[in-house]
């Protein structure tokens, strides 16, 4: 079996690229939302995709949470799926900022809008760092207000070998918004990513 694990250098490089991508994303979000957005340095973890559901079980158990998926394709065989997890309670605050209180919008629509704004701004930044560009599938609500979301996450994670877990905390001026982003990347794309990271490292 091919070795999918990252060297320490590759891991540091990826963390650095993600940090920069997050910085770009928060800058764009701040301009768009007209508010100060502070992003903590995201904690990343590379884990076996099969372990993901168990890791989130405790954190979201019994809470009204939402899980929204967004698939992406890049050049050079890079592809994956991002899953954004957050508590619905948090969603209301962002929704107000985005102006979602003034017309009849369904909850599902609001959730997909929030998620696609948060994930695509980040992924666009990451693509830029990787000298790549991504195209996106339409976001889908996998689960909402639903206690069974861990089992749905299990079904999704099953298709992927490696998961890049990124814990993100967006802090806006008046409140904080916590969410978890999971980047799921299939095995062959992990190899592509490793090659890309090596190229980035070679340039320094």
């Amino acid at each position, binding site marked *: 079996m091919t070795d999918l694990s990252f060297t320490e250098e590759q891991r540091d490089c990826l963390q650095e690229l993600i940090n920069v991508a997050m910085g770009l994303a928060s800058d*764009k*979000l701040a*301009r*768009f939302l007209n508010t100060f957005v502070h992003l903590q340095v995201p904690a990343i973890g590379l884990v076996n995709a099969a372990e993901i559901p168990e890791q989130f079980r405790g954190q979201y158990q019994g809470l009204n949470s939402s899980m929204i998926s967004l698939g992406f394709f890049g050049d050079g065989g890079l592809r994956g799926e991002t899953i954004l997890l957050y508590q619905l309670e948090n969603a209301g605050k962002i929704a107000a900022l*985005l*102006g979602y209180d*003034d*017309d009849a*919008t*369904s909850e*599902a*629509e609001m959730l*997909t*809008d929030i998620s*696609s*704004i948060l994930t*695509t*701004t980040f992924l*666009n930044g990451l693509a830029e760092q990787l000298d790549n560009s991504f*195209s*996106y599938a*339409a*976001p*889908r609500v996998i689960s909402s207000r639903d206690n069974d979301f861990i089992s749905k996450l299990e079904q999704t994670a099953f298709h992927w070998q490696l998961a890049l877990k990124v814990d993100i905390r967006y802090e806006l001026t008046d409140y904080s918004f916590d969410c978890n982003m999971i980047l799921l990347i299939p095995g062959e794309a992990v190899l592509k990513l490793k090659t890309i990271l090596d190229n980035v490292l070679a340039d320094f």
Partner: protein
Amino acid sequence: MNIDWLSGPLLQQLNSGVILLNQQLQIVYINPYICRRADIQLESVQGKDLFSAFPDAPKAWLSRKLNSVLSLQSPAFSSWEQRQYLFKLPHLRPISSANQYMAQNCNMLPLTEPTSGEHFVCLLIEDATDAYVYQSQLQQSNLQLQQVNRLDGLTGVLNRNYWQQQLEVEVQRAGRYQHPLSLLFFDLDKFKRLNDDYGHQAGDIVLIEVAKLIGSLLRETDLFGRYGGEEFAIILPDTPLQGAIEVAKRICRRVAATPIEYQQQQLMTSVSVGVSQFSTATSADELIQQADLALYQAKRNGRNQVVTYYPELIDSLKKVKS
């Protein structure tokens, strides 16, 4: 090979809608897919504001989304599952589909003109009417299955299983909000003899007609179910004992006074009714047991009458059994 010639014919023949807008959300280009369906000429809308060309589009929401695409330079999406359509366009399945407008998936993409660097947003619109139609049909059959699963096949009232689930719900509600709740149990008198004398078909007709008659005497919130054989039960939410007794007496009177026609014969029947009332001490099971005991007493008293549960009934039943 130079393929600059490709984009023109592709946009002409593409089986998806393309709308290109500038940063002021004015129309720069619309492909024939949209023009034909909306019955507009490109020349007549070019330079116009999107919402003056399509006044029915959801302005507040859509302009917010398009502005997010422009300022974040990130794509946005709209799915028919959340918003059936953005633009009122006809679809090509006018006969097989009940909905009037094309269900749409829409991608909103940020584009930059390479020489000037000017930003644009492009709407790609796909027809999702097929998916919409299948989904609606699926939902409808699921709803029908759910209905069938809840109803008694012969009489069309609730089946025992679903009725009993509803009783649990109502008992919990009554307990939580301190609301009154009453229960009626009733049984067709001498139903076995009717079956013996006239046949099971006659018995079925009587069950159907009696259920129909009683159903017409109830409120919409009352829950009427077939408990088994010729035994029926009615949950009366928000109804104190006195009200329940009145309903029971009315049922008794009307059933006894209404002949049921079967093969040119007039069949007469009657019901015996037991009434019980929820108090905080009782559970759903206890409520059923009490109504059942009262029903049994009504039978012993000579049928075609109403008996309300009282605690001594338990003792009298013991005497009968011993």
